[in-house]
């Protein structure tokens, strides 16, 4: 039975459970709601959830685990000779799965009977042509061993699916029966539902955390693969980045890190003063109408996709900078310092613009959180507004603002599209902001786009880069939190 129908059945059971549980509770109280411990709906929910939740959980886990278990079994059937011919076992298993799915489709569409499908012989039937007619394209002619593996795959899947359906429905019925049997007017259904709600919330929270852990581990394993193929010394301490798809590349993160930090620094130099001053104006000086008009406008900036910023960098800011710093005698300054539109300054300026609303809206919230009593106290002593801002409001808001800046920094370090389009692709150490440079994120993109072979260090380096980036931004975020916590106590 497909999972879809299983879920429908479970939901139907749950609905029935709700109605029956509610009814039974009312019946035990003689129809008088006041006799019940909880509102009738709680008894219904209790039965419904008891039927639904464990069964759904088992269904989900089973569906996740089943394919890999079956593939393990099937992979034993594939002869070792196949693996050696330059195919990885994963590719062969993909073929097997495809063939099995194709046969299922053939049966479903009536091209083959169940018996015919089971008795196919790779030697006599051209399975590839047969399935091709049904819209299932196979990469190569089917070998008997693959067919055998596919048949076995089908058999195992079939058995497992039946077992799954049986177990899930049985579990649902058990849950239903147990909860229904417990339903009584003195049963504290409300408290049970409350615990259930808490469990649901805990699951949601843990899922978010587990996903992060999962991401870190997947990056970590691929990075370890990379460090198995490439020296970690070169990666962390080498001086050049020169990937070479024939092998033997120099893959050092340092030039990329330099580019990343340089561009982020310029971005922050743009975003922090402007963002902070905008926030101060909006929260301390602007009248209510101006504020209600300007704040959403500023926040529109935050909604622009970064690719649009990238276009802006490439088509507007870059050429403008070239007109100022380049073009020789035709330029504004009459100098020839900048040749192309892509440069550290281009990317940094545009990224700074992107970060303005981020900095300003965080700082605005933080500044608004400073109690009005502080401002009154300062103004009441004869301080001007700007003295009040500088000496009372900003110091009180400083930890929060530092946190906001660090968050912006970690956004800048992880930003991709703007640097892909605005910064250029040359990895080097240079202090000249008018040269093009490249960043970690840009290199990850370029190493992983196009035809990639996930066994070469040139590709796997992307994961090591990604992991470094992750550690970097995580470090910044932890630092931000630490600063905020340390200084906050002083002001509470």
């Amino acid at each position, binding site marked *: 039975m497909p999972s879809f129908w299983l879920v429908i059945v479970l939901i139907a059971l749950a609905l029935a459970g709700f109605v029956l549980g509610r009814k039974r509770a009312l019946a035990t109280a003689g129809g008088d709601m006041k006799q019940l411990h909880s509102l009738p709906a709680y008894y219904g929910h209790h039965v419904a959830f008891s039927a639904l939740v464990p069964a759904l959980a088992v269904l989900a886990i089973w569906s996740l685990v089943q394919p890999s278990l079956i593939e393990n079994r099937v992979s034993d059937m594939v002869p070792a000779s196949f693996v050696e011919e330059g195919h990885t076992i994963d590719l062969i298993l993909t073929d097997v799965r495809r063939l099995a799915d194709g046969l299922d489709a053939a049966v479903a569409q009536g091209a083959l009977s169940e018996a015919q499908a089971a008795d196919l012989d790779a030697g006599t039937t051209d399975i590839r042509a047969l399935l091709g007619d049904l819209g299932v394209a196979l990469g190569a002619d089917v070998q008997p061993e693959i067919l055998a593996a596919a048949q076995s795959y089908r058999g195992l899947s079939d058995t497992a699916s039946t077992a799954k359906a049986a177990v899930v429905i049985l579990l649902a019925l058990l849950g239903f029966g147990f909860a229904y049997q417990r339903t009584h007017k003195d049963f504290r259904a409300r408290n049970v539902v409350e615990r259930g709600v808490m469990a649901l919330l805990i699951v949601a929270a843990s899922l978010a955390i587990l996903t992060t852990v999962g991401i870190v581990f997947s990056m970590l394993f691929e990075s370890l693969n990379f460090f198995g193929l490439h020296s970690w010394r070169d990666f962390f301490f080498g001086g050049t980045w020169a990937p070479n798809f024939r092998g033997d590349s120099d893959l050092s993160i340092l030039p990329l890190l330099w580019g990343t930090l340089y561009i982020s620094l310029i971005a922050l130099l743009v975003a922090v003063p402007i963002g902070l001053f905008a926030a101060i104006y909006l929260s301390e000086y602007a009248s209510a109408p101006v504020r209600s008009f300007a704040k959403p406008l500023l926040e529109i900036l935050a909604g622009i996709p970064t690719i649009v910023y990238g276009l802006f960098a490439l088509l507007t800011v870059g050429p403008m900078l070239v007109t100022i710093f380049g073009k020789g005698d035709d330029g504004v300054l009459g100098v020839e310092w900048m040749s192309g539109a892509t440069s550290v300054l281009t990317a940094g300026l545009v990224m700074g613009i992107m970060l303005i609303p981020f900095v300003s809206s965080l700082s605005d919230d933080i500044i608004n959180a400073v109690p009005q*009593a502080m401002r009154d*106290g300062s103004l009441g002593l*004869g301080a*001007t507004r700007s003295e009040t801002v500088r000496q009372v409001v900003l110091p009180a808001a400083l930890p929060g603002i530092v946190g906001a800046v660090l968050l912006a920094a970690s956004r800048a370090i992880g930003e991709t599209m703007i640097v892909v389009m605005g910064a250029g692709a040359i990895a080097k150490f240079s202090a000249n902001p008018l040269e093009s440079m490249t960043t970690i994120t840009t290199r990850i993109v370029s190493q992983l786009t196009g035809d990639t072979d996930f066994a070469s260090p040139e590709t796997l380096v992307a994961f090591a880069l990604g992991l470094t980036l992750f550690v970097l931004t995580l470090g910044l975020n932890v630092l931000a939190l630490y600063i905020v916590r340390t200084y906050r106590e*002083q002001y509470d």
Partner: protein
Amino acid sequence: MNQITALDKTVQTNKTKISARNVNVHYGDSHAIKDVNVEIEDNTVTAFIGPSGCGKSTFLRCLNRMNDTIDICRVTGDIQIDGENIYDPRVDPVQLRAKVGMVFQKPNPFPKSIYDNVAYGPRIHGLAANKAELDEIVEKSLRRGAIWEEVKDRLDAPGTGLSGGQQQRLCIARAVATEPEVLLMDEPCSALDPIATAQIEELIDELRNSYSVVIVTHSMQQAARVSQKTAFFHLGNLVEFGATGQIFTNPEDPRTESYITGRIG
């Protein structure tokens, strides 16, 4: 301070410090203060009493133009301090507020050290030429605020770490550090316990020697204890103004009597 009953108070007449004429305040469409006329004397504690929302805090905030910081607030009329109209365009409200100090309902020390809290005003207004002078001002102000003995060994500790009563005395010290001539207090004891309240009240009585003090209070006992003059506000009107003993024992207006005896408010 001894428990002086309102009756015993002798009222000597001092020169007028603040004189308000036909003061009206509007918040948007609502008329918060209606034609208030009052003469506040120097070296006197003047109490503003009245039920919540009667406008006494609003009027207090007119005296140092704190209402200017509220966009929708409009003040008309004439308020003179030492004969000078404080709403004259030539008057800088920032300078005015240094001359008319204010203490707020809730203690609001800045998130700075005790020293920096008190030194805040003098620094802004350039009252000290060097560190030694500033130290002197800070010590003098803390002594005036009757808190010097408690904090002299920890001037670097954050002002927010003090108890509520200490914080409020710190705020008073901070206000007197700019050498104001008038001290406005907006329910300075409403967030404090009775012991801290008693300390503040004692302090207010001492401050009278140097300043003209105006205090808004909800507690009629407090008004009776600390003030020489009392003004009763009701619904934005100044109903009655006179010697505290007079107001509390023999009010002229029936509304005042009702309030004092607890029938309205």
